[in-house]
């Protein structure tokens, strides 16, 4: 009848079984009483038959005596004696009938009691079966690893999930065997938690548990609560172990991302301050200053937006160049050629190149090819592998057809510093900048970082 496997008996199970045994005993006792009562009834029936027989015999004797008497003796005395004897017999018969009725009544009540006790027993069994079934359904449906333990942490039962997860079967997990599934460094924590556990508290600790399928330990949060019986005793502890590994890693990652974001924001603000400082130093009218600064700020903003938008945090070089030119209204045509293989730049490289292209564009617009009627601008890039096997982006910016114009030293200042000093410092770039009249010839060679995406060129044959 019990559904719970024998080798995983707990005190709660034993209690239930005792209850069932007790009720079974009661039923047996009642049945024994019933049998005894049956025997009594049979006995009484026999007695009644005997008395009835005697009554019949006596009746016959009486009739004979009466016949004899009516021939010989005066009626008087004998008749009186006869009547008294008959009356006594009647009383006896009535008492017998009452006794019969009482017996039948007692039998009926006994039957009722037995039926009731049997019903009660059946109900309790059904309730128990339902409760067990509910427990199983719940436990087998939960993602958590469920287990049961005695007060000292000795396991008495483990869910099928536990076995599937850890590879430890219920037998090996029983007692303190479950510790084997925990990371060696976390076993002391688990033991201590059980030592501290008491009915008023919940058992809780974190530990790494070995996932057999993956072959590695994952972080778990382990909790257990005491199951208290009606009389206040702790029957057992019911526990769950919940996988929090993913949660932990996500939290770590989130922490990292927040710190990263903070760093980026502060950095870009510092760069903006720096650019602003230099713009101011260059001097010029308030309008010029505002113009220059706004332009540079826009360029920085453009790269920042694109870098943070793309999942990989990259900027396509062609898009970067075209955006800069578009921002000053320059578009493809006979006087503007933009050409090169697809390259996705990351972070600092994107930002620096973006700013450089911005400076070149503004300069071309004010003094160079984007202003002169006959001006032509060629922007061209390729990817090459240098002798050490590093891939480099080689970009050239060539303005032609620009008449000689006096240069604005302020204009030259920031852009030149950026291209000639900042790019080499920050990116390890090799750069060249020539002013030819108002137009410019510039070449930038940048090593491409790990995050950049591009088609790797074939090694040049030597």
């Amino acid at each position, binding site marked *: 009848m019990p559904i719970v496997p024998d080798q995983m008996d707990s005190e709660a199970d034993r209690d239930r079984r005792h209850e069932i045994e007790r009720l079974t005993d009661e039923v047996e006792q009642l049945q024994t009483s019933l049998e005894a009562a049956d025997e009594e009834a049979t006995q009484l029936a026999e007695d009644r038959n005997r008395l009835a027989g005697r009554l019949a015999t006596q009746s016959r004797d009486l009739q004979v005596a009466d016949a004899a008497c009516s021939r010989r003796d005066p009626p008087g005395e004998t008749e009186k004696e006869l009547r008294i004897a008959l009356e006594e017999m009647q009383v006896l018969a009535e008492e017998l009938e009452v006794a019969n009725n009482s017996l039948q009544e007692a039998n009926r009540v006994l039957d009722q009691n037995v039926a009731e006790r049997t019903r009660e027993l059946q109900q309790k069994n059904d309730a128990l079966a339902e409760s067990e079934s509910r427990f199983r359904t719940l436990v087998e449906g939960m993602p958590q690893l469920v287990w049961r333990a005695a007060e000292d942490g000795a396991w008495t039962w483990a869910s099928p999930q536990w076995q599937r997860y850890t590879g430890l079967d219920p037998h090996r997990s029983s007692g303190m065997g479950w510790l084997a599934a925990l990371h060696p460094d976390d076993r002391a924590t688990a033991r201590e938690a059980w030592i501290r556990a008491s009915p008023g508290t919940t058992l809780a600790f974190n530990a790494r548990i070995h996932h057999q399928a993956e072959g590695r330990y994952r972080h778990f949060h382990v909790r257990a609560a005491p199951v208290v019986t009606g009389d206040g005793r702790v029957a057992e502890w019911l526990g769950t172990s919940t996988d929090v590994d993913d949660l932990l890693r996500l939290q770590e990652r989130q*922490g990292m991302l927040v*710190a990263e974001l*903070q760093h980026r*924001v*502060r*950095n870009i*603000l*510092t*760069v903006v301050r720096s650019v602003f400082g230099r713009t101011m130093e260059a001097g010029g009218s308030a309008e010029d200053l505002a113009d220059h600064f706004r332009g540079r700020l826009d360029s920085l903003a453009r790269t920042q937006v694109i870098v943070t938008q793309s999942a990989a945090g990259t900027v396509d070089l062609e898009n970067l160049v075209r955006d800069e030119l578009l921002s000053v209204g320059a578009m493809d045509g006979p006087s503007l050629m933009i050409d090169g293989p697809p390259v996705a730049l990351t972070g600092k490289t994107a930002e620096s190149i973006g700013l450089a292209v911005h400076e070149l564009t503004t300069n071309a617009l004010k003094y160079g090819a984007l202003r002169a009627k006959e001006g032509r601008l060629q922007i061209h890039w390729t990817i090459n592998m240098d002798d050490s096997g590093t891939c480099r982006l080689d970009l050239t910016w060539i303005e032609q057809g620009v008449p000689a114009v006096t240069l604005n030293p302020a204009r030259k200042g920031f852009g030149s510093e950026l291209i000639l000093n900042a790019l080499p*410092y920050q990116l390890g770039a090799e750069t060249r900048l020539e002013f030819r009249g108002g137009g410019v010839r510039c070449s930038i060679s940048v090593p491409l970082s790990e995050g950049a995406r591009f088609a790797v060129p074939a090694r040049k044959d030597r």
Partner: protein
Amino acid sequence: MAQGLSGKRILIVEDEYFIAADLKRAFQQDGAIVIGPVGDVGLGLALAEAGKLDAAVLDVNLEGSNSYPIADRLADQAIPYMFLTGYDGWSLPEPYCDAPRVAKPFTVHMVLAHLGQLLGSDKAS
């Protein structure tokens, strides 16, 4: 405060060119001899080990790595240093979260003031 850093050899490790250039200019205006600036951990370590430094200003986060190895090397030689950081104090690891630091964006004055303290306290001990 003019010439407050007179003759002091200060290492600058900062990977953002304009910030590095601003610091260099400010330190030089104050009379310091600037070692670097460099934006790379390797180069920074080499300069730290070359010795003869009075103080150092380190950007915590260099593109792709951090300047903690340089801080360690300087601590070994009892050379005082300060951090420039884009992070709050809470996200610096244990051994470094108590080091003098200036958060970005900063003014050059703030850096100079901290530097003065670094060198001043060094003199006192």
